[in-house]
């Protein structure tokens, strides 16, 4: 068990080991993820009120650092960056020389990875590195990363990790895990190791063994959080639900609200799609290839000779949701949704994935009740 001084020491130890420490901090009216120079930059005393299409910071009297839910970014911002240069080419003397961009990425230590995001990283691990074509950008950043997980004790109004089986207790994959406790006994973190390096770093911190009461209080706080989820998914096989509702009228309904702006996919911690952009300079002797985030809501994303494959907003929203909740299983063996609620919060017109799934579920039940 460590106190806030121990948390400060943890950041110092990680930095001394050469890690770029990234964690939550308050900026521009939100708790964003950014490089931390010290634990003092953590959002001590800040909570959030979350609803569909709405995010508001709220000050907390208890001074807790991690009693807030997912913010506007996810860790993919660092592991799967929005823009990456892949190669450069120079033309000199009639010869073209192509050079791969193999800049050594920073070694990240992520502080405050929630259970849902831990699962999201595992999903991206599978998508981007487990297949026959390992993505060197993600793989390089991921293999050097040190993960400090935080168990959720205060879910947001848009959280539904319990429905997706991804939290609020931290699953495997972390190097260290913290559970924050703020009560009459003080501000403390129950900290455990999850890897050899995690145990090594733990040994460098001066803490005291957690009493049975602390473990009980921490476990209790996480269990209580599971009872306070702001959202739930319908209690059904979502993969099957997606497969049998492809012609449901609800898709027209959601398309009438969807702006196809792409925000849901860009904040989603598992969405991974990219496009390539080739640029040349004025002389034409220097060219670069960049990989940038792209999303299935973009008309250009499915543009083939003859036009976009998914021209209507209905088909694009349906593609996103049925892939996320359904065909992701066929492709990658799991759901693509981890229940973090970001797509719900950051949709400018408050489209709620749980509400859409519930409406589709209701439609199937009504269809079953009605005589054919």
């Amino acid at each position: 068990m460590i106190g806030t001084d121990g948390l400060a020491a943890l950041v110092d130890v990680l930095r001394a080991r050469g890690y770029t420490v990234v964690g939550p901090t308050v900026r521009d009216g939100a708790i964003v993820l950014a490089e931390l120079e010290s634990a003092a930059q953590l959002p001590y005393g800040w909570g959030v009120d979350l609803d569909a299409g709405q995010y508001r910071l709220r000050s907390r009297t208890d001074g807790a650092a991690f009693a807030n839910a997912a913010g506007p970014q996810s860790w993919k911002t660092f592991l799967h960056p929005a823009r990456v240069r892949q190669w450069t080419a120079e033309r000199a003397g009639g010869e073209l020389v192509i050079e791969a961009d193999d800049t050594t990425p920073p070694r990240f230590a992520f502080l405050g990875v929630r259970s849902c995001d831990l699962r999201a990283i595992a999903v991206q691990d599978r998508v981007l590195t487990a297949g026959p074509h390992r993505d060197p950008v993600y793989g390089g950043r991921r293999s050097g990363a040190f993960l400090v997980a935080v168990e959720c004790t205060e879910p947001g109004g848009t959280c539904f990790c319990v429905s997706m089986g991804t939290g609020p207790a931290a699953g495997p994959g972390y190097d260290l895990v913290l559970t924050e406790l703020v009560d009459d006994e003080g501000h403390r973190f129950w900290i455990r190791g999850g890897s050899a390096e995690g145990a090594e770093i733990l040994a460098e911190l001066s803490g005291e063994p957690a009493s049975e009461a602390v473990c009980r209080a921490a476990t209790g706080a996480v269990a209580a959080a599971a009872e306070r989820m702001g959202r739930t998914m319908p209690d059904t096989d979502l993969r099957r639900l997606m497969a049998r509702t492809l012609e449901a009228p609800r898709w027209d309904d959601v398309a009438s609200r969807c702006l196809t702006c792409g925000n849901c996919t860009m904040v989603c911690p598992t969405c991974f799609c990219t496009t390539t952009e080739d640029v040349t300079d004025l002389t034409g002797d220097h060219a670069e290839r960049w990989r940038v985030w792209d999303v299935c809501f973009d008309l250009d994303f499915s543009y083939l000779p003859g036009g976009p494959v998914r021209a209507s907003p209905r088909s694009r929203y349906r593609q996103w949701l049925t892939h996320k909740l359904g065909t992701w299983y066929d492709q990658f063996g799991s759901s693509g949704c981890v229940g973090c609620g970001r797509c719900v919060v950051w949709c400018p017109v408050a489209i709620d994935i749980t509400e859409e799934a519930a409406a589709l579920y209701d439609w199937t039940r009504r269809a079953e009740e009605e005589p054919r």
Partner: protein
Amino acid sequence: MDSDDRPSLAVWKFASCDGCQLTLLDCEDELLPLTGRLRIAHFLEMSTAEDAREPATLAGTGPYDLSLVEGSVTTAEDVRRVHHIRRISRRLVTIGACATAGGVQGLRNFADVEEFRAAVYASPEYIATLATSTPISAHVPVDFELRGCPIDRGQLLEVITAFLAGRKPNIPGHSVCFECKRRGTTCITVARGVPCLGPVTHAGCGALCPAYGRGCYGCFGPVAHPNLESMVRQLRHDGMAGRDIVRVFRTFNAASPEYGPVPGLAAQESTEPPAEEERR
């Protein structure tokens, strides 16, 4: 420098404020490399004296390999001149909201130009003008349209660079939201309730306004097939009055066919758009 195999560039002005042409002059670091690759053959804004080969006339003689056209068509003379420019240009690229969508002056399309003429000018009989302000594409085929009021310097260089390399310019057609997310700006609508046109507005500015806490006001014009009904509902939800909603759509790109009659607004807050043939 003066090798004759450089392609020639011409810059043209119609009804506009000159801001988009100035963007070319703002390419300070790139201007010299640019002139190494392109012969700037006709560019009145930049010229101090007449070039012997290129008299500084409004029409130019040509032919030109690349014509950049700023401004909208608002007079009968404009109509004649834009056809002439098309004839003497191998590639014609419009630059900015006026040339691409009619510009601020496109507001006349929703009102009576005779009334304006009488109210604004002391001697209205000297004013020769069309009833509408129309984009260049309403008159001649256009090879590429660059958005913005004004255009983005980086995008202009990209279009010229792509022309020189003979490739498609990398000018994405997605929403401004993409640019906010890629640069890591927290959504100001969701986090602060600021009304913002970003979700229905064509990218290209680099999401400048939201990065400084200001809502996008659509100076790059609409994305393809914007869901305006939903956008208008959201702007109302974020506290924008109906009158202000009409205004925000009816500013820089008022004559964009996508905006049409802004849906979801009461009839008295909107006015009928001109008939399709008038607009084209």
